[in-house]
């Protein structure tokens, strides 16, 4: 058996979480690198990578409903907002101008944010049982616009546009994660928190995907009528997909702005939803690692692009002239997304599969 890693002798092996030795090693290395990172890179990068971890949690959530269950939702920003404001209200300062109950324990506000968002997801799910494809996408987009109107108006909760409020300040079992101390800086603590949560979220999603529920999702995605004929309860599983996805979105929303320490209601717009869809598509729909990769790429891409003009000294950095470095950056962001999807429609995960197959067959690769 040892030398035949792809030979399975039971169904259980086929479904194992980490089915090959190389996967085990790779995951081990990644985990170790992730844990070691706070002592390797500067705080400002760490903050960005922590943000990418949170984005990855949100992207995994969207991937459950879009990548696995095939229901494309442009309403992710709406659920992120619900999570963000639930958490901010629970953990907020009771004396501040905006609603707050002062419960900063992350073990309380994080699940609460997820649950409230999940309830909203379950309420929205009936739409998905009635609508399909682009209709569903645009209707969920409608949620973002209507939700946006509500949070803009509800300024006792959100502070109002342009004024905003503070996100929750996390404490874990009484240990303050929001300020630096002798051992760890604030950014190091927050990064570690985000990283651990990402690992937990990814593990849970992976387990869900290889369970009976996950297989039902895949069946619905591939052909919902066929799935229905085989006895998959469409309404039920679509509801579960929206609920779980929104739970992830709620948790991600709660954590999304903890690093910055401020957020305002105009952040939850069409662009945010689209970014999450882009994460899923660029990473590779229907895979957990793809969603994570996509989230990291989309979050880090602007940062990488900002380095580009320094290699092109002939581009003006005066914003009054055209073309200038800033226009180039923004155009590049759009163009890179286009180029990437044209040349690698299966996403980052597709590149990985191709690389793997190349080396697997080496030296007979073609």
């Amino acid at each position, binding site marked *: 058996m040892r030398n035949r890693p792809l030979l399975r002798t039971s169904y259980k092996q086929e479904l194992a979480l980490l089915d090959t030795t190389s996967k085990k090693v790779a995951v081990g290395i990644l985990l*170790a690198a992730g844990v070691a990172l706070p002592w390797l890179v500067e705080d*400002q990068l760490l903050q960005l990578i922590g*943000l990418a971890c949170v984005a990855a949690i949100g992207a995994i959530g969207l991937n459950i409903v879009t990548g696995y269950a095939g229901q494309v939702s442009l309403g992710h920003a709406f659920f992120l907002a619900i999570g963000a404001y639930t958490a901010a209200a629970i953990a907020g300062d009771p004396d501040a101008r905006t609603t707050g109950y002062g419960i900063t324990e992350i073990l309380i506000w994080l699940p609460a944010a997820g649950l409230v968002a999940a309830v909203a997801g379950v309420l929205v799910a009936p739409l998905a049982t009635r609508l399909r494809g682009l209709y569903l996408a645009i209707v969920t987009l409608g949620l973002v616009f209507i939700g946006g109107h509500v949070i803009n108006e509800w300024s006792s909760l959100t502070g109002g546009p342009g*004024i905003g409020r503070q996100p929750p300040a996390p404490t874990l079992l009484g240990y303050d994660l929001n300020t630096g101390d002798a051992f760890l800086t604030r950014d190091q603590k927050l990064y570690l928190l985000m990283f651990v949560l990402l690992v937990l979220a990814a593990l849970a999603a992976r387990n869900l995907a290889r369970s009976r529920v996950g297989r039902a999702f895949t069946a619905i995605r591939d052909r919902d009528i066929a799935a229905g004929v085989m006895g998959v309860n469409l309404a039920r599983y679509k509801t579960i997909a929206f609920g779980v996805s929104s739970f992830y979105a709620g948790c991600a929303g709660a954590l999304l702005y903890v690093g*910055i320490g*401020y957020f*305002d209601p105009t952040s939850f717009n069409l662009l945010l939803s689209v970014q999450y869809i882009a994460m899923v598509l660029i990473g590779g729909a229907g895979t957990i690692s793809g969603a994570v990769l996509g989230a990291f790429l989309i979050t880090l891409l602007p940062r990488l692009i*900002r380095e580009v003009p320094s290699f092109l000294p002939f581009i003006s*950095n005066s*914003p009054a002239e055209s073309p200038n470095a800033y226009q180039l950056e923004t155009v590049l962001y759009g163009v890179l997304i286009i180029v990437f999807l044209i040349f690698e429609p299966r996403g980052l995960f597709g590149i990985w599969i191709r690389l793997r197959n190349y080396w697997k067959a080496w030296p007979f690769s073609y």
Partner: protein
Amino acid sequence: MKRLGMFALAAVLTVGSLAGCRGGDSTEQGSSGPKSDIGITKEPCPKSEHKDRGCIYLGIISDLTVGPFHVLAVPITDAQKAFWKRVNAQGGIGGYDIDAETYVRDNKYNPQTHNEAYQEMKGKVLALAQSLGSPTTAAILPDMKANNVLAAPAAWTSAYAFEDNILESGANYCIESMNAVDYANETFKPKTVMAVHVAGDYGDDAAAGAKIAAEKLGMTFINVKTDSGTDKQAGAVTAIVTQKPDLVILTTGPADAAAIVGGAAQRGFTGKFIGTSPSWNQGLLATAAAPALKALYLQSSPWKSWASDTPGHKAMREALGSSVTPNDGYTSGWVWSYPMLAALKKAQADGDLTRAGLLKAAKSLTKVDYEGMLPDGAGNYAGGADGIFRQSLIYNPTVGSGGPNDIKLMKDYFTGPVAKDYKLDKPCYENL
């Protein structure tokens, strides 16, 4: 699983031993010259001709491409670059040139992007020559406070009166609107005042000022919120036409302002509009709304416009050259730079160009020399919220061709009775 754990442990240990890579902060104290820590080098600035001088780096984070304010932000940024170039040409600050070119970043008016750009330049700049936008600046304020970073804003919100790290200039929106209502009260005695404004600290702040003034002067106040986008002004126009206020205080973008004024006039409205400066653009005079604007529109302003005759304005026009299209974005960028210059000079005189030193110097300023662009008494940061500047002006921007060279001053710098007595104890928009 066990093997996996061992592996992880080994990796962590290896990596831990390499942990020296993370750089720490270092405070420099040269043998001569002022103390310094971050954002100051002994080496000359990258593009400087003065090879014998050191370099002070200032960052600029602005809305340069697709954000809603890039039309204003681009000239602001340009003027600031020209401002600091002029400072360098005049001898720099205590043996240092100022570099406001190397760290210029685009925030796309997104708090997240703003924060990223700030984090990126944080370790390399002494202070921010510009941090554009209120939600964006709010996203970096906690960190600025923790690290003693000073910034010149590009907004007039009253919340900045309470922030030591922000060097605001001129009257804030709230005071400006109070003065506008006072001016109207003096000239044509309105009975009803309506504030038509976009949401957020820009619009809300001005609306709150109008509300305070209206209540104080015994007028009826009506609050109308609108959104940006010329197709979204129907609600505002209807509110104006049906409730017929005598005075409308307008805080929107220029295209929306034209849609509102033009739409209301076309449906028979004859009251007056007073807009804040971001609501105006000279291009509006070529639109179909021009007759309405000419008949009904006045503009309040925190400082004098492009073509004014003061040493500061002249210096600005010279520094920018004749190739630029006149625009009050330039004026604003130029004015906002004076307090930073004053703070740097003060800190240098105190022999402490560290961030903490600069912040301390800024806090101790009781007046700033704006070279006549703002009257004496402006720039009292030592006075905190009580020291805010309370004078503004009223222009009629619609006379003649409407260019900034051809704009009529209705009332020079004044403080209305409401603004004079008003005690700013919290950001105005909280009163709305």
